[in-house]
């Protein structure tokens, strides 16, 4: 079996709301191999960001907790790791970029300072050398006239340029895993394509693994090797990208794919999924997708189905009473 860089097992994270603790992600298990890009997909509120913050140990404290599960990075559990050790991984082996390029950079520090900081604190580079390193990184993310940009403040830069700076910052520590939380969602379509291409190039060039979070199936097709579809804090379906697009099994995956604008379809044929993701304190008892699902049966509202493997290769799993059962050869659910 190939080496798994990251193994997430039964990860469950809760937030404290007015009337108690509620889980935002539940029993999440997935793996990430070297050089692989795993896309985490789902509508807003499905728990994608919480998953990333749980891995990075960046959950807002107090008010949140990891109830159970583990995050094994090179076999070492990051859950409960002492803060000092976690900090030495954050920004170096594990890097993260965020959705909002306009607010994610510090307005009071120059671009150069913000990148150099990573080199200074993680590699012990002198401040002067670190600034030089920052310049190389700006070049690497293809910022034009990088030398003149070094002393710019973020407010001088466009959204696309800021996101490139974010990427340069994330690359500074030579990460093994890059967590990208909707890095292109806030950008114009053309800029979005450029940033995606850049990330893709860098990933190959630097041999990184990537967890790419998005709600856009179009972006998934563009970047992912494997896809994990999330709904209501659970994994709904996990499959290699070709399988998922050729043979979507979970009703939610199907619905997501139908809602993607495509060149060969009229814009009026777009099918946004009716209804909303329930909030974490209003989750239904059974399948969390039940109230929006066209295929539901009685058991759906009673009990949560298990994530079940449906392919011989063991790389395609689905959590659905109806579709899971149809797909498995013996026709039985494995509850």
């Amino acid at each position, binding site marked *: 079996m190939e080496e798994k860089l990251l193994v997430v097992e039964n990860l469950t994270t809760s937030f404290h709301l007015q009337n108690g603790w509620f889980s935002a992600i539940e029993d999440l298990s997935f793996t990430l191999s070297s050089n692989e890009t795993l896309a985490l997909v789902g509508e807003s509120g499905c728990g994608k960001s919480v998953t990333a913050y749980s891995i990075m140990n960046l959950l807002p404290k107090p008010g949140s907790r990891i109830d159970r599960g583990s995050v094994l990075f090179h076999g070492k559990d990051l859950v409960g790791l002492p803060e000092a050790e976690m900090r030495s991984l954050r*920004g170096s082996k594990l890097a993260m970029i965020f959705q909002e390029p306009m607010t994610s*950079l*510090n*307005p*009071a520090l120059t671009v150069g300072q913000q990148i150099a*900081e990573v080199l200074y*604190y993680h590699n012990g580079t002198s401040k002067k050398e670190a600034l030089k390193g920052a310049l190389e990184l700006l070049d690497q993310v293809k910022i034009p006239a990088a030398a003149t940009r070094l002393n710019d403040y973020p*407010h*001088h830069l466009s959204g696309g340029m800021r996101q490139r700076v974010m990427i340069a910052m994330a690359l500074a520590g030579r990460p093994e895993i890059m967590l990208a939380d909707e890095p292109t969602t806030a950008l114009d379509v053309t800029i979005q394509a450029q940033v995606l291409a850049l990330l893709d190039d860098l990933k190959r060039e630097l041999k990184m693994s990537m967890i790419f979070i998005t709600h856009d199936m179009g972006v998934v097709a563009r970047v992912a090797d494997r896809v994990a579809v999330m709904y209501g804090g659970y994994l709904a379906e996990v499959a290699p990208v070709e399988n998922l697009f050729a043979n979507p099994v979970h009703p939610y995956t199907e619905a997501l794919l139908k809602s993607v604008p495509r060149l060969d379809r009229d814009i009026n044929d777009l099918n946004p999924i009716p209804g909303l993701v329930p909030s974490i304190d209003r989750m239904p008892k059974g399948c969390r997708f039940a109230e929006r699902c066209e295929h539901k049966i009685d058991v759906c509202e009673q009990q949560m189905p298990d994530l079940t493997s449906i392919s011989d290769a063991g790389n395609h799993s689905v959590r659905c009473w109806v579709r899971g059962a149809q797909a498995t050869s013996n026709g039985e659910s494995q509850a």
Partner: protein
Amino acid sequence: MLKYVLKRLAMAIPILIAVLTLVFVIIRIVPGDPAMVVLGDQASAEALAALRTKMGLDVPLIQQYFTFLFGAFRGDLGASLLSGRPVLSEVMTVLPYTIDLTIAGVVIGIVFGVPLGVLTAVYRNSVTDYIIRVFSLFGLSFPAFYSAILLILIFSIQFNLFPVISDPDLSNYGERMNHLVLPAVNLGLIMVAYITRSTRSSMLEVLREDYVRTAKAKGVPRFVVITRHALKNALIPIVTVIGLYLGVLIGNSVLTEIVFNRPGLGKLILDALSERDYTLLQGVMVIYAFIIVIVNLITDLTYGFVDPRVKHQ
């Protein structure tokens, strides 16, 4: 940056004119004939008329107004009725004492207020937070003259650590500082309270910002996240708050100077009031207003200095 400075300077001029006008009007509205106030109600009509002429009160109001305005801009605020010396030099003699005191108060306020504010924000809703917040509330609701008396009772009379009367003119530097401590602490306490509170709320806001999360994600030490990333941005509104309360502080320094019997603007105002020296009073008001305008100007400029978004406009 230069453009910003010039713009701010240009804006200060109309404000100054407005303030001067206000002072002029207030002094004229106050009932009573200034000449009679000086000479007493037994004075002869000729003596009163002569004094009015001398004081420039016999010309039309509008002319008085412009004389006053142009005089003020040339630094001529008339002469003290009592001492006969120019008002400006009366003020300039004591102003350094008040400035010393105010600066000492602000320094104490910043040195203690900013760290306490950061602490309460970072450990919000903890015991530390509650204790510091209760104390700062206490500090805010305490009148300056009352805390001054308490300080004297405790530290001068009970423990005999500092003098009761503060003399700013001693030639020995150490002695002079020793005389400054209690009045400065009295002023500083209020400033600590103000700065702690505004630092706390400003920090709480900034700690929620996305860029603070980015800094954490970069793995820089927590102290660096709090200072370099959060505090640096939180300071921007704090500078304004300090500027704003500097006015309050100068007001409190008046009370403090009186209680500690320390020469300064405060004592000058008190003397002018009790001696009914109305040109002196008018002059002190003008200079007081001038100081506030200057302080606000400096605050604005500092603002431009800490916030790169302003600097580059």
